[in-house]
């Protein structure tokens, strides 16, 4: 029976090796940039860097490392696009901070919790991104609820699968 609400002491904190810490986000960025060439809808629905950010943040359970992970991954994602650098950075920083803070409070090891957390943080990410893009950079953005919900669910389901794969790289502290 998984524990769904724990105190900080009861929650396990994981760490990752340096190759995994660097390699997995880079691989996620690479796949995110390459796969749409063969499967164009991939970039429309999936955001692998976001899933990786959520996973590392939740596993480490440290808000500082979570927000820094999010910031680095987001900034790297910004650099591959043509929009001003920092939009994804800010959004993923917030997500990293939120996910790690939530990870401290909640045990998100089971699939259901992961699904809901990923779905929720997808919308947080989208909200921050749209706010920054429209408010600070004045980029025209339109929000579509059907598309947003579909993409959120798609990311949540992919996240559940991805987290179980990435669980293999966890190291207990």
């Amino acid at each position, binding site marked *: 029976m998984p524990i769904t609400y724990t105190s900080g002491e009861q929650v396990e904190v994981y760490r990752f090796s340096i190759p995994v810490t660097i390699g997995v986000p*880079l691989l996620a960025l690479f796949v995110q940039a390459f796969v749409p060439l063969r499967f164009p809808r991939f970039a429309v629905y999936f955001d692998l860097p976001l899933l990786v950010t959520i996973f590392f943040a939740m596993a480490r359970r440290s808000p500082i490392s979570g927000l820094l992970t999010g910031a680095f991954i987001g900034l790297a994602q910004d650099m591959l696009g043509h929009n*001003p650098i920092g939009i994804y950075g800010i959004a993923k920083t917030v997500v990293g901070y939120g996910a790690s803070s939530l990870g401290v409070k909640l045990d998100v090891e089971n699939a259901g919790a992961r699904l809901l957390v990923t779905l929720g943080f997808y919308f947080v990410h989208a909200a921050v991104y749209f706010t920054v893009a429209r408010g600070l950079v004045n980029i025209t953005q339109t929000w579509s609820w059907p598309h947003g919900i579909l993409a959120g669910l798609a990311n949540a389901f992919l996240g559940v699968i991805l987290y179980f794969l990435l669980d293999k790289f966890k190291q207990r502290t």
Partner: protein
Amino acid sequence: MESVLSRYRNLIILVGVLFLQVLGLAMQVKKNGNDEEKTRLIRIWAVGAVTPFERALVWVQSGSGSLWHNYFYLRGVRAENRELKQQIEQMRLEQVRLAEDAAQARRLQTLLAFKEQFVSRTVAAQVIGSSGSDHSRIVYIDKGESAGIRRDMAVITANGIVGKVLLVYPSVSQVLMISDESSGVGALLEKSRLQGVLRGSSNGEVVLERVMSDEQVRVGETVLTSGGDQIFPKGLPVGTVANVGRGKDLFLNIKIKPATDLSQLEEVLVLVEKQERQSAADDGPRMRASDILAQRLPSVPDKPAADAKAAGAASPDTGVNASAGQAKPEAKAQNQAAIKTQATTAPAKLGSTPKPGSASSLATGPAKPVRKPAPAGGAPITIIPADSTSTAPRTVEDSRGSATAGEGGASQGNPPTAEQPTAAKPSAPPQPDPQTPPSPNRRH
């Protein structure tokens, strides 16, 4: 104080990191769109970190694919097919160029001093990556500065346009696709010739903007580049009209289906050199609008030979109406020289009285019309000789028009007025120049 800092340490760091990023964003936005130069280095790092893997993967993929296709599946057939496809691509480009050229000629656009651009040299490139985000519709190609690619070069396929080069790195370039929100391409509808601006949208659709709502736009009509953006040559296919609806303000919202499948890009062509060609109108001397109008109007028949003296120097066999409607002084001088020559070699039997301000227009000659070559840049002169035995006035016509002037008279280019003598009708109506289009202003 220390306890407050330690208590809110996480929050403070979060705010600090966010503040730094917002600051960075503000600096980029403040540069008003020229952030590429400021952020170029870090973008190069990011691109340099990712594109080698993409390039390697594409290489492995294409290598293994070509191994299978060329040696195991069908030896040689694939290579031949690729060559043929390349030939087709080149021929399509050529076809587009020729078709547009011919269409322009039909529309008499040679009268406009419009510089037309043609595709001259392209560099083939392979698409190796994308931004991975639907908020930034860009792709990366495996050719960069070393291959001669520069910023703002057009990127096309044989089917149509793709986008433009946004950033150039040593061996990689970033291409902004036409479906991106920040993209803008000058476009026109092929049949109606309505011009607009092609823009991307947040959901990846391509929309033609700035077409007034009272215009008729049909679904399925082809959209071409207009050349007005100075990036894409004129006449390249953009796509077809997929849907027409009411847009904002007074404009239509025209959705375009791109001719190129932007989601399935593999190989593209970068236009590294555009051949600029001057229209034919620029080759010759410039003409004024009044001169062009004068060319199209028929001449008014001259008065009968009431004044034989004035016609005394006319040629017996050829009638020449020295038109004053000449656009160019050389042409006028040629006509005048011809008149003088003829006047000194043959006596006139018939002639017309030169009107004040009109050239002497006299001739008799064989009944066969003679068509003289046109002076440089001008329309041909049709000379219709009068019957040598007839006393009728010469039915001499200069295709340049009706306005006549005396030797050395200035070109007026005005149609005949009521004050001009028309009472003496010629026995035969003047024959219009077959090259002259019918004009509502035509008078006989």
